[in-house]
């Protein structure tokens, strides 16, 4: 994984481009059951990686905010706990930090299970 990540040249996208990049990646991952889900629906304790962040139209700034605290493509992420009542807010481990997110915020984060990311195909998408 380490050597592969070294060679990846992620496109230097602007924020407006995020959704188009996302679509490309989504298409590639489809068919792999359970890889295309949002963080708020993840099961507790499962190791996941961030695929991309997509902010709601009403709050476009959320994308930057989430990225600043570490929700960047390729980062490891895990749902740690859900609050009561109603499973909201959530405790999320992102990289080495722990954050409390509301469900609406976690829904902006598309994740895939860690094993299902095939490094070679990942590289292929980016190239």
């Amino acid at each position, binding site marked *: 994984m380490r050597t592969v*990540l070294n060679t990846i040249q992620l496109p230097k996208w602007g924020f407006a481009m995020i959704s188009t990049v996302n679509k490309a990646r989504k298409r590639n991952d489809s068919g792999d059951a359970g890889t295309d889900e949002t963080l708020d629906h993840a099961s507790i304790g499962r190791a996941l990686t961030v695929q991309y962040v997509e902010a709601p139209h009403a709050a476009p700034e959320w994308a930057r905010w989430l990225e600043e605290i570490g929700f960047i493509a390729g980062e490891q992420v895990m749902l740690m706990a859900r609050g009561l009542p109603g499973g909201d807010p959530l405790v999320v*481990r992102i990289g*080495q*930090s722990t954050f*409390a*997110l509301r469900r609406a915020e976690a829904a902006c984060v598309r994740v895939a299970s860690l094993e299902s990311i095939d490094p070679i195909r990942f590289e292929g998408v980016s190239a």
Partner: protein
Amino acid sequence: MSESVIHLYPSGPLLALVGNPNCGKTALFNLLTGSRQKVANYAGVTVERKEGRLTTRDGKVLRVLDLPGAYSLYPRSPDERVTCDVLFGRAAGEKRPDLVVCVVDATNLRRNLRLALAVKRLGMPCVVALNMTDLAEKQGIKIDPEALSAELGMPVVSTVAVQSSGADPLRDLFDDASLWSRGASQGLPKTTAATQPDAQGHESDHLAVRRILQRLGLDDVIPNTTSDRIDRVVLHPVLGPVLLALVLFLVFQAVFAWAEVPMGLIESATASLSEAIGGLLPDSWLKSLIVDGVIAGAGGVLVFLPQIVILYFFILVLEESGYLPRAAFLLDRLMGSVGLSGRSFIPLLSSFACAIPGVMAARSIANPRDRLVTIMIAPLMTCSARLPVYALLIGAFIPQREVWGGLALQGLVLFSLYLAGVVGAMAVAWLLKHFTASGRQVRPLMMELPSYHLPTVRNIFIGIWHRVEIFLKRVGGIILFLTILLWFLASFPSPPDGATGAAIEYSLAGMMGKGLSTIFAPIGFNWQISIALVPGLAAREVAVSALGTVYALSGVGGDTEQALSSLIASHWSVATALSLLAWYVFAPQCLATLAAVKRETGGWTMPLLMAGYLFALAYIASFITYQVALSMGLG
């Protein structure tokens, strides 16, 4: 509460500490500067500005600035904006730092190094303080500062902010002259470009950090198992809230129970001081001014110092240990139901000591609407200044008996007064949620839950000392001034010859009180109460000493609180007392809070709105209380 920007150490090079929230930056600042700190505000904003002084081994004197924690150089809260403004050299009355120390949490390089890279790009001389290296080693993270320094292109030193010698390597580095000129030639990037969101820089910083960590063999994610184990209990759906309730209960118990002895000591010290001075001075207006005005007034306020110290002790311990964000997490849902977020919990908790630090703490809330609502309801939390009023009235009017199998009735009344404030605050927030357009928007939480740490004695002590200093300045300043002013108003002019009533009835204060009592008659306040409310407007606790002064100068009884309690018990009806209690739950009787709100919101609109709505609430609540009590035969 410190009003202005003070340029304490205007000469000498300026060093700024920058870092992510929870990277141990303030602990490092405390270690570097010791007790030589000054807390004030940045010009124009109520963001706390902490400056200290440091002397290097070679005798060089440096000014050290502790900038608010930030995740990036794109500010999302007033706090972070200050950090950016200072770094870009745009802050009013603030020099651009000569050297920036990027404090980096060694256990979380992945996120922390991004900010360091962004700061480096600004072109100032820069050094990285690799903090919490002891914790990192415990977690099995071994970082070679030399290698990291080569990767980053700036000096890197390891620090352990919780050890007394933990900052020595950093301190020694400051004597290196080449450090101060490093990178300075690159100059400042164009401010327009620098303020614009720079997606590419941001993105490449992330990749750069990833590459650096890979080359140093540090890109494994190591779970923080100790914190996780604690969180399994603290954030447990059932155990978590129970624990939170227990913690809050313990805090409030301690505030009342532990403070009793030191409060008694302060009271007796005040009494013996006024006796000693009273014995030395001949009977004159000067004696009356010093004994009835200065000593009684200031002493009556100073008596809350133990409670404030204890409450801050707990708030600081909970904050330092990392528990407060967890409490905010547990309460997020509840706060969300009235349109706030868990983040509002910390300012509101502080408001139980005093609304001013509460209003100031609201600055950490990124969303302007949430911040404003939190500020507006903060005065409804029962601050410690209301306690003497509550204690006096409850002691005088609520019988000491037990109800419902062993619960003290007096305690229950006190608890219900606290509850009334909280319920009132929630109701106001709920109304604002449902009847304002901004109230229906969805706002993010995105709150970090930092790893648990054992609080250090030094940081707790310094934190408490800052609060005590602010409080004592307030006692020495506005409260003392008002007490003297009231004494003056209540003593002059002297009654005409052949007057039959008490002297105070002919004074300026007596006239004001009689005028006001026509407004307050429907809620049962007599003219003595009306007078006491005038200085009580400036600070609630003054109302007790004001009542003392009013009754003392009325010549009806003695001047101790004991006497005051039995005095009002015989002069007032129960309905009046209950009405005054209801008044105190809501009334905005604190000019200092309104002044803080004015600074915080940048104009008179919000403080005036706040005073208006709180007075209206107070009048309505008192009116209902009084009329209901009358109809129950308590008049």
